[in-house]
């Protein structure tokens, strides 16, 4: 009798412990390699959201560095899947996402990312949820701002040779043609290129009236700095890398005059409200300025917490909840367009040449008309 009671009590204790056991959300992001800056933002945003909001749902994070190779991402995902997670925060690097998606599909585990590469939501996967506006949103904002607000007619484009760069360039070319301002010059630039003067010199020969950039952080700063130092004062509308405080920190405030950038949001530009509170908390916790990637991944992880709070337990339930519901995040309202694109708004921020904090110059809401 005593043994029976003890066994029942033990079983009850174990069941309670199991119920209270934390679920680990894998955070598989590039913390080293050429995308480590953006990957660190992604990690910080996810970890901050899960720590702050997910603890009540029994969630905790385990961060794994994917590096920048597809193999690194695949290995990290396979290892994470052994823990049978109900979702994973996954790399913002498009080439890594393309490698991870088939594995996530086989396991039926949703991936929450901020990758901008258009193709990841064009593969028909039900497990991809992108919380950063894709190229079909932000490139529209970039092109429209250049043409409609700045009056550009002869744009030049420099883009990265990576999948991210090629995806954005393809969208920009198409959108600009549609707006009646086809490119007069374009070139792909490898991430390792340090001296930008050769391409800037050739670009000048094409007589552009605006320079569009779709480059990672370091390359963006190198182009703008070397352009300004060589006397090239063309207006610049850059990709989202230029809204990052760490990119602006590489340049003199005066070199930023005439420089704008597309982005999903600009946390440091908000003086008050929930985004400003997020910025203050982020600064205090990580000692750095937040960018749009951090805020978008924060919102993505917060939506995962909301799914859990709504009763989604398994990976399939989480996936179905994310696909069917909308979520009011800090940066915008997120809702799937049916292919996993959750973000549909964009902003263009501009620097005034006096400070490194940009102001929001234009907002583009529901750009793809699917929200």
């Amino acid at each position, binding site marked *: 009798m005593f043994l029976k009671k003890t066994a029942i009590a033990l079983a009850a204790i174990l069941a309670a412990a199991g119920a209270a056991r934390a679920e680990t959300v894998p955070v598989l992001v590039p913390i*080293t390699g050429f995308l*480590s800056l953006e990957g660190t933002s992604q990690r910080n945003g996810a970890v901050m959201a899960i720590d702050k909001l997910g603890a009540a749902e029994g969630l905790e994070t385990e961060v794994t560095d994917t590096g920048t190779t597809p193999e690194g991402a695949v290995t990290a995902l396979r290892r994470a899947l052994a823990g049978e997670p109900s979702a994973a925060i996954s790399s913002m690097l498009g080439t890594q996402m393309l490698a991870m998606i088939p594995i996530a599909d086989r396991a039926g585990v949703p991936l929450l990312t901020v990758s901008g590469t258009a193709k990841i939501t064009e593969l028909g996967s039900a497990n991809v949820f992108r919380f950063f506006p894709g190229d079909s949103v932000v490139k529209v904002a970039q092109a429209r701002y250049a043409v409609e607000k700045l009056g550009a007619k002869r744009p030049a484009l420099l883009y990265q040779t990576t999948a991210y760069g090629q995806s954005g360039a393809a969208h920009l070319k198409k959108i600009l043609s549609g707006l009646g301002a086809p490119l007069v010059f374009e070139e792909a630039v*490898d991430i390792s290129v340090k*001296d930008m003067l*050769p391409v800037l010199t050739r670009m000048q020969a094409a007589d552009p009236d605006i320079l569009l950039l779709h480059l990672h952080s370091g390359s963006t700063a*190198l182009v703008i700095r070397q352009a300004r130092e060589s006397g090239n004062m063309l207006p610049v509308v850059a990709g989202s890398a230029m809204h990052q405080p*760490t990119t602006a920190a590489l340049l003199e405030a005066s070199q930023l005059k005439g420089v704008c950038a597309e982005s999903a949001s600009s946390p440091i530009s908000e003086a008050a409200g929930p985004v400003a509170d997020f910025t203050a908390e982020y600064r205090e916790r990580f000692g*750095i300025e937040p960018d749009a990637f951090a805020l978008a991944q924060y919102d993505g992880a917060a939506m995962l917490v909301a799914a859990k709070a709504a009763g989604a337990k398994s990976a399939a339930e989480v996936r179905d909840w994310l696909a069917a519901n909308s979520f009011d995040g800090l940066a915008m309202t997120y809702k799937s367009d049916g292919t996993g694109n959750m973000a549909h708004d964009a902003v263009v921020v501009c620097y005034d040449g006096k400070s490194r904090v940009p102001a929001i110059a234009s907002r583009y809401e529901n750009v793809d008309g699917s929200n």
Partner: protein
Amino acid sequence: MTSLALAQILLNGLALGAAYALIALGFVIVINAVGAVNFAQGELVMAGGFAAIAIAPLVGDAAGLPGLLLLPLVMLLMGGLGVGFAHLAYFPLRKRPRVAVFVSTIAIGLVLQHLANAVFGAAPRVGPPLIAGDGPVVGGLTLSLQQLGVLGSAALLVSATGLFLGRTQTGRRMRAVAQDPEMAAAIGIRPARMITLSFALAVALAGAAGLLLSNQFFVSPNDGGLFMLKAYIAVTIGGWGRLDGAVLGALLIGLFETLVAAFTSYLVAEALLYGVLLAMLAFRPSGLLPERARTRV
């Protein structure tokens, strides 16, 4: 393209090549000293850039020459790191197959990369300028003080290294150990000391290159691979084991990349550079300035 634009591009290429020359020089010094490749040379360049950023507050904007004043400090600091590097990456493995040494240098390079990431963060950082202020305009060409500083500093350091190795007793001892360590030991030279000195000099030169490049081209924890690759190509083109070959190879790479990119594209420049490298390996494997035959790992 105007002649002024071409002159500006040439100046850029020369400055880049001059910085590559310091990296390649350090690379060859280690090859000569221990007969193995130091695959951490690129990460040591990156470490030099971050070292400059870390100690920059010591000099502030002193006399408008912050970078130039920092240069000896960075080299001293990196020289000390070189001594530690030798005792970590080389001496414990010197009796093992030489492949163990280059694997250990790869490992230390990765440790340096992750350390920089942890200490300084993933974002690119801008180093102190060698000379503050705007450059002079000569015949319509704006001369960048930074570029002039890079060229002058690199020329000085290359010449000083050449003089040190060729004209001083210590330099001659280092060369003697490089040529035949057993014979050098037999005549009273202490090979371990000379090898340590070689590592210190090589790492100090890498650190100097890191400082020279950090302002104009920024520095980030992931830059090492690029610099390593350039040094390797420079040495292959210039001639394995030859100091002057390394310098020549590096200058040629800087000019080649910049000029070809100015007339075609970066992709063509990159493809042609590797094409030239393959041609060199096929038809002139000993490089433009060949050394006498010797086993390399």
